[in-house]
């Protein structure tokens, strides 16, 4: 399934690298549930949320700068950062 990473920039501890925000990738696998690190970081009660491994084409991220159109990059992204594309 294709998903887009939310293009937001909250000024606190988050687990989504900025270079992936706004980019479209494919869910590679469902990694299960983990306590939300963005709440744990502030010592808040953290409920378990889904973590996904998402595969991005390098061209989606870097445009014409890529060396090979076959290259991809995987990133592990929590569900609240993902929207259906």
């Amino acid at each position, binding site marked *: 399934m294709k998903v887009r990473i939310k*293009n937001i*920039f909250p*000024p*606190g*501890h988050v687990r989504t*690298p*900025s*270079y992936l*925000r*706004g980019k479209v990738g494919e869910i590679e696998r469902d990694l299960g549930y983990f306590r939300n*690190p*963005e709440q*744990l*970081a*502030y*010592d808040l009660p953290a409920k378990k949320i889904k973590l996904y491994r998402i595969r991005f084409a390098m061209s989606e*991220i*870097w*445009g*014409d700068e890529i060396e090979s159109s076959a290259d991809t990059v995987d990133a592990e992204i929590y569900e609240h950062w993902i929207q259906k594309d």
Partner: protein
Amino acid sequence: MENNFKKDAHVRWHDMGGRHAENLTFTEHDFELWEKRVDALMVLASNKGYFTVDGLRRVLEDMGEHAFDEMTYYERWMASINQNLIEAGAYNLQELGEKMAEVAQRGKTYGDCNISVIE
């Protein structure tokens, strides 16, 4: 193509993925005793439930880019562990200040400290 990975005002300083690296130093070095102790303290504090690695990272990021330039890796860890332990109520600032003064009295080196313990 619009790339938001460039160093924009809304990208926090530590979020370095995709930026061009400047000259990197690849020299190896052993850890100092105090650095190993800081590492061990992180394990102890998280096992005790005072805070998690997420809290460690949160404070490191909030310390800002100047800390990255001016402090070593474990100096930053020490500051972050202390901040998290204060927030978790493991000790208060009064206790910390008094303990720091007491430890400073022991001497400037590990050797000095050991001598005072034997006495």
